[in-house]
């Protein structure tokens, strides 16, 4: 008996839509003089992000890692003076599979020199409006969304209040270990579904979730990460930063990530010290954003599962 696993899971129409989408994206950036570049997919260094695992390969007998994003390569090119640039290609994340995830996926990442996160949010909105043909763009801060839906200030609420809110809203098999885990649970279970239709640009994340974004005070004097996310109909599509350019702070964050991973018994990968060197030599002030192209295609074509837009997802790859 055959179960036809040689066949693509995506329809031929979806594959043609994919080609058209990639062409649209390239045209969008060509018109704006943003340069397409290639950076290594296979690298001796890996992300230090506490919640992202890399896939390990062997290259010339030694471990190498499949890129979880093109970020480090692109930033080194920015520091080398290349100017506005983007990458459109594959990225890989270990352990991520489901209706919205495939371990191998297509990522668009671009950088704008001299811009901050607010200005780049505008361009993300323009690209999404163009590709998805929707005009409604709502911008709101992380705090505003929490206040609107849960009457809770995510920056000032006590850990006990956050835990109590989680306990009210979500049935868990475990006790949340810290504030950020509570915030992640509320975001994914309660707030994403409540975002409503159209494009939502969410900005000013908690400083503890800055990743590689600058931390600055907001209008109320609260330190916030100058990071934003784009959602369409509650589906997370893109994550952007006003980029950290301070090499000492960059090194501190790498080391803090390493300590976190070590303490939580997660694999500790070699971090990219060349990024710290690139920042030392001077990376221009810039904003950058990464966008999931498979999800964009899901939205553009009205598909409910990522398998419907990828020819051969991991079960068939």
């Amino acid at each position, binding site marked *: 008996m055959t179960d036809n696993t040689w066949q693509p899971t995506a329809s031929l129409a979806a594959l043609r839509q994919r080609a058209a989408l990639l062409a649209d994206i390239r045209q969008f950036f060509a018109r704006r003089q943003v340069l397409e570049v290639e950076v290594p997919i296979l690298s001796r260094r890996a992300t230090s992000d506490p919640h992202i695992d890399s896939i390990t390969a062997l290259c010339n007998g030694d471990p190498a890692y499949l890129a979880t994003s093109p970020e480090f390569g692109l930033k080194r090119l920015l520091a080398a003076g290349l100017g506005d640039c983007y990458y459109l290609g594959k990225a890989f994340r270990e*352990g*991520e*599979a489901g209706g*919205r995830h495939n371990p191998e996926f297509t990522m668009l990442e671009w950088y704008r020199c001299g811009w901050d996160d607010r200005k780049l949010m505008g361009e993300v909105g323009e690209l999404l409006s163009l590709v998805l043909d929707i005009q409604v763009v709502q911008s709101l801060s992380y705090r505003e969304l929490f206040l609107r839906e849960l009457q809770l200030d995510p920056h000032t609420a006590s850990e006990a209040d956050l835990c109590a809110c989680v306990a009210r809203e979500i049935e*868990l*098999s*475990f006790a949340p270990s810290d504030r950020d885990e509570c915030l992640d649970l509320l975001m994914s279970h309660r707030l994403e579904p409540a975002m409503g239709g159209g494009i939502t640009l969410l900005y000013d994340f908690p400083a503890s979730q800055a990743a590689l974004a600058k931390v600055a005070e907001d209008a109320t004097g609260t330190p916030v990460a100058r*990071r934003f996310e784009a959602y369409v109909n509650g589906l997370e599509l893109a994550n952007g930063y006003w980029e950290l350019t301070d090499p000492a702070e960059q090194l501190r964050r790498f080391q803090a990530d390493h300590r976190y991973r070590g303490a939580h018994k997660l694999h500790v990968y070699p971090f990219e010290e060349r990024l710290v060197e690139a920042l030392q030599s001077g990376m221009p002030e810039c904003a950058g954003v990464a966008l999931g192209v498979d999800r964009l295609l899901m939205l553009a074509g009205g598909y409910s599962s990522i398998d419907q837009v990828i020819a051969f997802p991991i079960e068939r790859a």
Partner: protein
Amino acid sequence: MASYSTNEFKGGLKVMLDGDPCSILENEFVKPGKGQAFNRVKLRNLKTGRVWERTFRSGESLEAADVMDREMEYLYNDGEFYHFMEPDTFEQHQASTDAVGDAAKWLKEQDVCTVTLYNGAPLAVTPPNHVVLEITDTDPGLRGDTAQGGTKPATLSTGAVVKVPLFLEIGDAIKVDTRTGEYLGRAKED
């Protein structure tokens, strides 16, 4: 007993949760781009039939439940227990009223049902999707009224009550869908 990690959870997998055997219905991987990964899981408690929603940290695991589905022939009810037999081994099992639950109203002797065994004992009974049963009580038939499409309640030999077309009479054998309780048609006379 083996255990399963969240990335192995899939529909139909039987696991233990809060001391009860459960069947996984759905498993959704949830991960913010820069946050922690969770699995939102829907499970049916096989003891109570209730559906639970539970969120796990990705990578957590649950113990497997010793649960298996067996095709068995329904033999008889002794007033307290329902008796079933495995057709190949002739091994007999007795199921409590609780285990049989709503399936009781569709059980006809010699029909083959799915009996869910938990640690070797019947936990639940699923009747065949379609059963043929005799009407034991209904209002008198109205011949010539077949085109009207009206219905009336009819009591079947097992005690179930279903809506049937007006022309059917006591003693008629009918086919019923046990999942919906709907009348499907008259059973053909052998």
